[in-house]
């Protein structure tokens, strides 16, 4: 289904350009439902042609934020601007944004064609033009053969494509995708993610996707906003979010992380020394962007794939060494996960890529192992 040569994405980073104007702007937006604050004084800029992801657990306010942009919920406070225009008071049927619903919300009494043509008919487009556009959309999502079918005669993946075609048919300025791939199985989801990216580049539409699946967010989007309890915990590209998480919450929510608590004992030239009493170790790490002061309670965060696991003790004086016993091994095919129990009882995970097909692996259960990493492999996160 994926063409070997897709459109190639150029370097695209308008958020780094101070002169760039945001296309969508949430300005101090708050949304309350009774006592519950779904979105809390949130400000966010999204740029034209950007593929932007709102990532967070259920109930974090990401869907509410999207529904406010679509016009289904009015913000309690603040305003939303699209292309410089305030959207307050504009009903959903007059907004130049279209949404692909999580449940797809296909009209069951209309054919695939009828569903895709629905939005165009509302515009009063003439029949010939509608037919051309519908044919175009059917080709885009590769559903030409199914034009005359009703939604209940399609598979889940096909319905998802119809929903996508319907929401793109009007050439909206912004396409909103609410957990668009949630109902698909893993293989199909991965394929569709790449197709979505191709379609987005091809049409140049601004895409805003809501998802709780971090892999999906990282795969498709230019930037990700990680949300928690109605506020944005961090905005950044996938690698920024993954490699430089701004908080423990982000580090923990996106990907797998080892967190080791300690007290800062020294800071010098952007390098902090962390005394970790719990695991009886001293960790040296870059301070990153946060202000780290001597005596502060902090945590050291490191991704499992950046931890090296060895049977031989490293030379004396090597910084960043933890020792422990292999507690558990998870074989996942491409990688193996070693759960190592340290002296204090806490568990540190280390993953190793399985580069060869050897059956016997040197490290096994209850082996005494050493965990090491370079100084720049992890980050210090303040409490």
């Amino acid at each position, binding site marked *: 289904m994926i063409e070997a040569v897709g459109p190639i994405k150029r370097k695209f980073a308008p958020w780094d350009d101070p002169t760039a104007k945001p296309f969508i702007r949430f300005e101090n937006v708050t949304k309350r439902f009774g006592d519950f604050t779904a979105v809390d004084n949130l400000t966010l800029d999204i740029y034209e042609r950007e593929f932007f992801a709102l990532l967070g657990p259920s109930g974090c306010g990401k869907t509410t934020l999207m529904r406010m942009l*679509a*016009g*289904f919920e009015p913000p309690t406070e603040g305003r939303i601007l699209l292309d410089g225009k305030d959207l307050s008071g504009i*009903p*959903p*049927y*007059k907004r130049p*944004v*279209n*949404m692909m*619903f999580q*449940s797809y*919300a*296909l*009209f*069951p*009494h209309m054919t695939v064609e009828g569903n895709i043509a*629905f*939005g165009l008919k*509302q*515009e009063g487009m003439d029949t010939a033009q509608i037919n051309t556009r519908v044919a175009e959309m059917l080709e885009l999502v590769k559903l030409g053969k199914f034009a005359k079918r009703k939604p209940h005669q399609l598979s889940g993946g096909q319905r998802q494509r119809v929903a996508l075609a*319907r*929401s793109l048919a*009007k050439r909206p300025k912004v396409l909103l995708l609410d957990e668009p791939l949630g109902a698909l199985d893993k293989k199909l989801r991965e394929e569709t993610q790449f197709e979505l990216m191709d379609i987005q580049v091809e049409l140049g539409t601004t895409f805003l996707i809501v998802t709780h699946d971090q892999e999906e967010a990282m795969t498709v989007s230019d930037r990700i906003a990680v949300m928690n309890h109605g506020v944005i915990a961090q905005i950044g590209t996938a690698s920024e979010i993954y490699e430089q998480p701004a908080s423990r919450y982000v580090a923990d929510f996106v990907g797998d992380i080892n967190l080791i608590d300690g007290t800062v004992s020294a800071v010098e030239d952007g390098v902090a020394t962390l005394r970790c009493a719990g695991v009886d170790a001293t960790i040296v790490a870059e301070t990153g962007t946060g202000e780290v002061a001597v005596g502060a309670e902090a945590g050291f965060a490191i991704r499992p794939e950046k931890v090296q696991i060895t049977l031989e003790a490293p030379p004396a004086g090597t910084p960043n060494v933890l020792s422990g016993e292999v507690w558990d091994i998870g074989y996942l095919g491409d990688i193996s996960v070693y759960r190592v129990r340290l002296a204090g009882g806490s568990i540190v995970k280390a993953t190793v890529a399985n580069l060869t097909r050897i059956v016997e692996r040197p490290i096994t259960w209850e082996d005494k192992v050493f965990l090491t990493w370079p100084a720049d492999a992890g980050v210090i996160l303040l409490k």
Partner: protein
Amino acid sequence: MAERWTQAMRPFLAKWALVAIPYLWSFLFFLAPFLIIFKISLSQTAIAMPPYTPVINTLGEFWSKLSDFSFDNYIFLTEDPLYYSAYLSSLRIALVSTVLLLIVGYPIAYGMARAPKSVRNALVMAVILPFWTSFLIRVYAWIGILKPEGLITIALQGLGILGPGEQIHVYNTETAVFIGIVYSYLPFMVLPLYAALEKLDATLLEAAADLGCPPTKSFWVITFPLSLPGVIAGCFLCFIPIVGEFVIPDLLGGSETLMIGKTLWAEFFNNRDWPVSSAVAVVLLIILVVPIVIFQNQQKKV
């Protein structure tokens, strides 16, 4: 051996016994009475007990008396304009009533389906509540409301809209029949409509709005078409019994309200002409059943 056979057959028999129940019911209370009525409709009236011939006492006599049966009564129905005008009038009243019921019932069902979940069950109860009182008593109550010196007149006089001597003359007219029918049959229209509307996925309306369709229009292009199964069920549930309605036109309607149920009653009790009234009933059944069967076959094809 025999025991093993019954054991093997048991699930099979149980399944068929279950399927047989509705068939048995239909046979006992629909098909058998219908055959009796049909037989009487082919007989001749007589001053006797029962008032028709031939009387078949045993099945053995059936073939010997077969030549006594005739379609005379059916031919008679076509000769007297009373009958076909009564049929037409019944169909017209039923049609108008069904349309009125749909107009009154749809907004009620729609309102119920859109009400907060917590009050929906209470609203359904409220719709069913009138059934706790006998149908006949409720129709009698309408006489008290509609008659010239009834509650409507009193209320309008009290409001000063009517002068002291003036009265509302609705009772004994076709309007009163329509009021009675719409009132009595409303639950049969509202409940299937509510069932259809309650199932409707609200995100479909959001999707329609999202694609540029204003709410009033999305009602006609989304809500109404998707509620059609409920509309059809409600219309059938009302139309069919209204065509044969006897009590409401008899109690609320005047002499000019001609309905086949009343004609049948008069034929049966006043004229004691069992064969002709049976023929009237058989024709009524055909008028109702044939279009329904055709319609259902059409639905299956779609």
